[in-house]
């Protein structure tokens, strides 16, 4: 499993794309998707919602458990991925691509977002 270099990562296992016109895409990492197992339900923030870095903004339900979805940055949600709502297995099959969760217009970001290398080190314990 490799974490794309162009993304940044939160300690709650979300990824964040580089901003284009101030808007970034958010998803959960492959590591997180594997830990969850088959995702069967996702509840995403709605377009227009304000999300706050480090706070919950939705949930991901898998066979064994439910997990909170944390916002990696603060900002306004401008798009939610309806495809992943309709087919939550996209989170497992394509966590960094078709399984993205929402797009956010960033107003503030925390100082502890990680690079791909830092995140890989965190999740492999090396």
């Amino acid at each position: 499993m490799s974490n794309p270099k162009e993304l940044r990562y939160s300690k709650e296992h979300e990824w964040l794309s580089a901003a284009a016109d101030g808007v970034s895409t958010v998803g959960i990492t492959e590591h997180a998707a594997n830990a969850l197992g088959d995702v069967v339900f996702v509840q995403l923030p709605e377009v227009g919602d304000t999300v706050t870095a480090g706070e919950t903004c939705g949930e991901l339900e898998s066979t064994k458990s439910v997990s909170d979805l944390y916002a990696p940055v603060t900002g306004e949600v401008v798009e939610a991925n309806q495809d992943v709502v309709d087919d939550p297995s996209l989170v497992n099959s394509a966590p960094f691509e078709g399984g993205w969760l929402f797009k956010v217009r960033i107003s503030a970001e925390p100082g502890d977002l990680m690079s791909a290398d830092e995140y890989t080190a965190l999740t492999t314990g090396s």
Partner: protein
Amino acid sequence: MSNAPRLTALDALHRSLGATMTDFAGWDMPLRYGSERDEHNAVRTKAGLFDLSHMGEIAVTGPEAAKLLDYALVGNMGSIGVGRARYTMICQADGGILDDLIVYRLEDQAYMVVANASNAQVVLDALTERQAGFDAEVRDDRDAYALLAVQGPHSPAILKAVTDADLDGLKYYAGLPGTVAGVPALIARTGYTGEDGFELFLKPEHAETVWQALTEAGQEYGLVPAGLSCRDTLRLEAGMPLYGHELSTSLTPFDAGLGRVVKFEKEGDFVGREALTAAAERAEQNPPRKLVGLIAEGRRVPRAEMQVVADGEVIGSITSGAPSPTLGKPIAMAYVDAAHAEAGTKGVGVDIRGTHEPYEVVALPFYKRQK
């Protein structure tokens, strides 16, 4: 005792298959190898191979083995034919369930009791204590066996490829000694998935040989390794109780809707007889709560200990819940007040993190295989 998890004889093999492992009753067990939903569907439509070596085997032997078990357990163990098995329970004097068990009669004077991993010590202690005065021996055989299960509609064909045993003559809930992949095994037609299938008790040092042989024989039938995660959703769909969820020391078999396992007509006293007689009457006349099935109308998944509600009142609680791969909807088992336990009862919901999600009350099981 050390806190290091116990490993089955197949531990290295599971890791080589990329299994996600989980702690289960002190054992490090495979939770899933890939997608648990795919494993679940494979068992329903083809076949799955499980390592269940955490289950606890206890041998009960001797001239009064049957008498001891009739006293210690709630069922009629003396009436089991040699080569047959029975689902039963062991209760406290107050009728509370200590564990649910499968008991195999291997010989006239030799039984094997199979307990849940989490209760194996409790069952062993209870049997040892209850053994006093009987000409019978209770022996801890937990380390003597590895347990593999091949489950699913293709399991007879797969097992036939590696054994000469008469599988066609082996009925559901029967067991016979045989040879599998060249090694001795007790072959039982039992399982916990709601499908046809077999459980193979063998020496731990033979586990890998048999696992590999079954894997090879199963290739053309779509056999996949299957973990405890799908075992849980399979048994839930089949309406089978799990100790610690549907069964506990604070419930009698009658409370759990399983009063049929208690055989009052058997000879002699048995532990719990008096309390269970009262429990049977209570369940008949004034049942406190009943075990029901719930099917979600929405997609949020009920989990154990969530509250079941109706008209703003708490009417019960979830014991097990999961997304059902077969139904494509979340399902649960729950104890609910008798007034709301009838299939089709309207207005029942589950409080899922503050939201009352609508649920349909149904009779168990959710899934029954076509024979």
